[in-house]
């Protein structure tokens, strides 16, 4: 079953007289529960594509269905509600809220976005922190933990709402090789554990090899789609 279906997807940016065709007619579909990577050099359109899938940036043309919703029709509020319910984000710079503890960062989407009751919320956060191996670090602030730990927390935050889809834009770009590998392995483990679809972008070949499906973008076009070394999905 396809979680994401993109047809003739285009994105054009205009700045004054300059027009940039960031995505130029892309077609693809992503199955539920898959572990997919978009790869390509800088400027190839990876981030733009992820932003469109994540309802952060509307396509200029084409259709894009995510979790059975035509997300091109969403207004800002609808897009925010959809993201809060269905999509988790993992950022290159971790993007944890510095004034909240690790526990509170993971708790944030449940508390400020989904309004879960306290007891249920806390249990869920604790479960997620245990799943990412950060249960004993919950009281610490982001400034008190390492980059790898921050990304673990970010993954926990992305998964805490039972998101159907996690989008990770260059999740290992700011990590050393060993930590980057551990993060990818953790993401995969989380996929297996929570049956969540992971879509991430990278241009790091060390990370690409762990993907199950690899879509290669070049100049805003899908150059090729292949099965990766880490995959069992076709």
């Amino acid at each position, binding site marked *: 079953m396809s979680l994401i279906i993109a047809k003739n997807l285009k994105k054009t940016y205009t700045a004054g007289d300059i027009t940039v065709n960031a995505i130029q007619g892309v077609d693809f579909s992503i199955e539920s529960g898959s572990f997919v990577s978009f790869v390509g050099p800088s400027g190839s359109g990876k981030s733009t594509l992820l932003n469109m899938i994540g309802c952060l940036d509307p396509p200029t043309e084409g259709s894009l269905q995510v979790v059975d919703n035509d997300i091109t029709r969403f207004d800002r509020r609808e897009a925010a509600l*959809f993201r*809060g319910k269905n999509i*988790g984000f993992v950022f290159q710079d971790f993007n944890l809220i510095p004034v*909240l503890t690790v526990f509170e960062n993971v708790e944030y989407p449940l508390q400020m976005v989904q309004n879960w009751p306290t007891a249920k919320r806390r249990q869920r956060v604790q479960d997620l922190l245990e799943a990412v191996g950060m249960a004993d670090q919950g009281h610490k602030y982001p400034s008190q933990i390492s980059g790898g730990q921050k990304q673990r927390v970010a993954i926990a935050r992305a998964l805490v709402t039972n998101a159907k889809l996690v989008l990770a834009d260059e999740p290992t770009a700011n990590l050393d090789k060993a930590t980057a590998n551990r993060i990818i392995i953790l993401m995969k483990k989380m996929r297996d554990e929570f049956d969540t679809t992971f879509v991430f972008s990278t241009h790091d070949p060390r990370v690409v090899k762990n993907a199950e499906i690899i879509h290669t973008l070049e100049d805003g076009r899908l150059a090729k789609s292949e099965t990766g070394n880490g995959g069992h999905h076709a």
Partner: protein
Amino acid sequence: MLNIFKLAARNLMRYKRRTFLTAMLITLGVVAVLLFVSISGSFKTMMIGQITDSMLGHLQIHRKGYLASIDSLPLNRNLSAKQVAKIEQVLAGENSVDTYAMRIRLGAMFSNFAETTNIRLNAILPDQELNTVPLIAKRVIQGQSAGLIEKGDILIPELIAKGMKVKVGDAIVLVANNKDGSVNGLSLKVRGILEGIPGPGGRDGVIHLEDAKTLLRITGVEISEIAIRLKDMDQLPQTYADLKAKLSSIKNQQGQPVFEVHTWEKLSPFFNIAKMIDLMTFFIRIMLVAIVLVSIMNVMIMAVYERINEIGTISAIGTLPTRILGIFVVEGFLLGILGTAIGTVISLIAIAAMNATQISFDFGRQTGLLLEPTISAGEVVVVVLTVIGIAVVASLQPAYKAAKMDPIEALRHV
């Protein structure tokens, strides 16, 4: 909602120095306003009390047209016995009226047998006068103040006493024209010297009403003015309106109103000073509003600018724009609360300290007036609510900007 407050408080604590400085600026504004309001308010209340309780009363009733020609103290515009009776009947029906005093105002020649000068006189009935303007006895700076005045005595204003070199116990002569133009004289003994106070009648001498009637050859009842004291000064506007309505309905044969009623505000020039104090208070409040508005808006604009990436993050993970708006508005609100709370506490302590140290000051010819600043709970509440309201308003624009921020642009911001 509690979560928004927690997040807002933590964000304020993130920049402790900036939060502290902004809160202090608001504190300074609150202290300035509360102290000014308390000191100027107390000064105003005290001066109004001095004026109404030592001379004017809270209200005065005259025959129509008297006030317009009060400089000449016209005897032909005195109230007749019938008119006085009518006024007394109206006053009896006013529950807010505590007491009233009948007066004859007149001008005369004052002679110490060596020199002669003009004098303006207020002829009174001492019991009525002491009940209506109880502080008048305190204006007797030399001589006997008990009982205020007796027949055959005169209280002379300080300036005439000095100018004419008249002392307590001296004999003097008053010469006056009655309303028919005939001249009469009366010998009186100086009972005391009266301190002058600003405003109409503040430098008048005082004699007994019966002596005035003798001097002016008045056989029946003739009264220039009736000064009224209310049970509660706060009832002044309502009582004035009631009396005006009742008295203006009494008309003469030509269909014109017979009486006029005035509050102390119309009678005393100090009312203009009181209005100026109110105006200054208003401008001080405007300055407070400007301080709070500019400082909080500045801080919140900075806060939004510094947290653009963070706004992008919380927006991306599904935080609704209204909630983002709430986070920043609550930050401004808390900043307002912090500054106001500190400012209010400091102000109340300062007011208590000023009362404890018994600061005295001079006003015009009055010396040693005690500064007793007070502030009502209502005034404090108004200032507090104003500051907090302005803090919220000042946060709205930056908060709105944060809420409307494009998450993609925000996430790209470095």
